[in-house]
């Protein structure tokens, strides 16, 4: 893709400074999901957010996408503050978020229709993107006729059709079986290399983080803070059984264990109080 070549200013794609989010701020149900997040995502970089569930990873993605507003700090996208969602930043969800009433190609070209492209243009674009994700044959099927892995590939295709410079992925492969998940990781790396977009990828799976990331951000339990950023300087495709991978796995497991323990302790504390 060439869209980022023409307009890639220097500096990070996403820049978070002191970002915090308090849900339902000012009400009795207010609770802090994120606190003091400082994070830069470079253009073309693959960043994985790793942390116990409930630590605010999805919340951070929503802030980057512009779907929610942070309550502290700034989120910049190529130097401009994020104020609203944009087709340039695509979000892919864990659960199927395909429109069940549209065929696969109509799903893929949904954003183009919103933009006002004509039908022939949309058909062409959808065909091209579907070919890229290896689903050229299923354009006329409906989402419920596809397997889980194919559906997520369609979701990726729908995001790619907008030629985003940032792909935000919220545990996109969590619902898939192990074999499919590995295939999807390889597939995602291919797509990422080809598109040169930046990726922010949420997971709570250590192996997934090791397979994909340029850098892994490990989160603390609630309120989510960045505990440590672990660079992964291994060539891809990565051997999960290489000694370097083992070392990383040990390091990340140790980092996570503390937080999972803390999250559990907090929940038990809550139970005792309540």
């Amino acid at each position: 893709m060439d869209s980022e070549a023409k307009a890639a200013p220097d500096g990070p794609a996403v820049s978070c400074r002191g970002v915090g989010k308090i849900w339902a701020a000012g009400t009795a149900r207010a609770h802090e999901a994120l606190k003091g997040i400082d994070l830069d995502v470079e253009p073309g970089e693959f960043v994985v957010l790793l942390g116990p569930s409930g630590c605010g990873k999805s919340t951070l993605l929503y802030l980057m996408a512009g779907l929610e507003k942070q309550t502290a700090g700034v989120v910049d996208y190529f130097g401009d503050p994020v104020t609203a969602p944009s087709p340039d930043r695509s979000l892919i969800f864990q659960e199927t978020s395909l429109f069940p009433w549209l065929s696969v190609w109509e799903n893929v070209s949904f954003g183009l229709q919103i933009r006002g492209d004509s039908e022939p243009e949309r058909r062409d674009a959808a065909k091209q993107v579907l070919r890229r994700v290896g689903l050229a044959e299923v354009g006329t099927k409906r989402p419920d006729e596809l397997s889980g892995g194919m559906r997520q590939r369609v979701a990726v295709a729908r995001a790619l059709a907008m030629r985003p410079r940032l792909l935000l992925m919220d545990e996109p492969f969590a619902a898939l079986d192990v074999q499919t998940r590995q295939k999807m990781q390889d597939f995602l790396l291919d797509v990422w290399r080809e598109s040169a977009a930046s990726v922010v990828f949420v997971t709570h799976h250590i192996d997934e983080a090791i397979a994909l990331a340029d850098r892994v951000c490990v989160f603390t339990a609630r309120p989510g803070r960045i505990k440590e950023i672990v660079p992964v300087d291994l060539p891809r495709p990565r051997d999960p059984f290489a000694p370097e991978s083992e070392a990383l796995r040990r390091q990340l497991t140790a980092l996570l264990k503390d937080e999972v323990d803390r999250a559990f302790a907090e929940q038990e504390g809550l139970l005792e109080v309540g």
Partner: protein
Amino acid sequence: MSVSTHADQSAGRDGAAADGNTPPSARPTPVFLERLRKILPQIGWTLLSVGTFALIWEILWVAGVADPKLLPPPHVFLGDFADQAKFFNTAQRWQIGVSESSGPSPWQAVMITVLSSAMRVFVGISIASILALSVGTAIRYWVAVERLTLPTITLLSPVSPIAWLPVAIFLFGIGNAPAIFMVVIALFFHMTIATINHIDGVNRNLINVARTMGATKYQIYRRVIIPAILPGVFVILRLNLFGAWMVVLIAESTGVGYGLGQVIMLARNTFNPSLVFFCIALIGLLGFTTDWLMRMTQKRVLYWVNDPSGVLRGL
């Protein structure tokens, strides 16, 4: 059931595997025959079910348990069609100068009566659906509309449609209009509130996808929310179909002109059990047909919704 035509669906389970094993296509069967093969057993079972019920009734009659004056068996009340049909006669024979033998044939008379009732239900349902979808959507779209209308709608929704009958007559006198008005009233409030509830229940992810694609509020409603709520609202419509038929019969029995409700009232007032059961059979048949039509509509319009009936059959 036949599997042959759906073989290609399962062949595409995995993109790579799909190429090699396209199934040797079965001998193409004409669509019509295929369909007939599917519905024939269904029709057979329906006939058997109804037939068994009628047979028990007839046996009770033969045994002398069922008094034919009060519980005339099917062969009595269905037997003399012309005799029943004369009560459906819509010709105004009693008027001066109208000949005794003029007017529609028995079949025509029954059809005119049944179709005019069905027409009232159909028109009422259509108006109520469009109105409820528009009002419910407008309530969520504009806060001002919600503030202005929702309290009134919430207050009026538990009122039984029967209470509206006098209003229908004050407003519309007699004829089609009051009966249609009653159907609209019977459906409108439930469907409006169902529309609002379903809008609130739309999967947030679908809306967020549209938002990240840059959709405006209008586009989100038109392209995501409306299609997403249609199946649920349609179910509410099907559930309220019974209510629609009921209020039409009631409205007709109060004299809005010819209609099934009027014939039932006549049967009641003249103590004519045969006619009562004849009407019940007709209404059953109508309800069955209407529900079938609704399911066909659902298949056409809401093609992406899988029919969940029978999913528990394998247990």
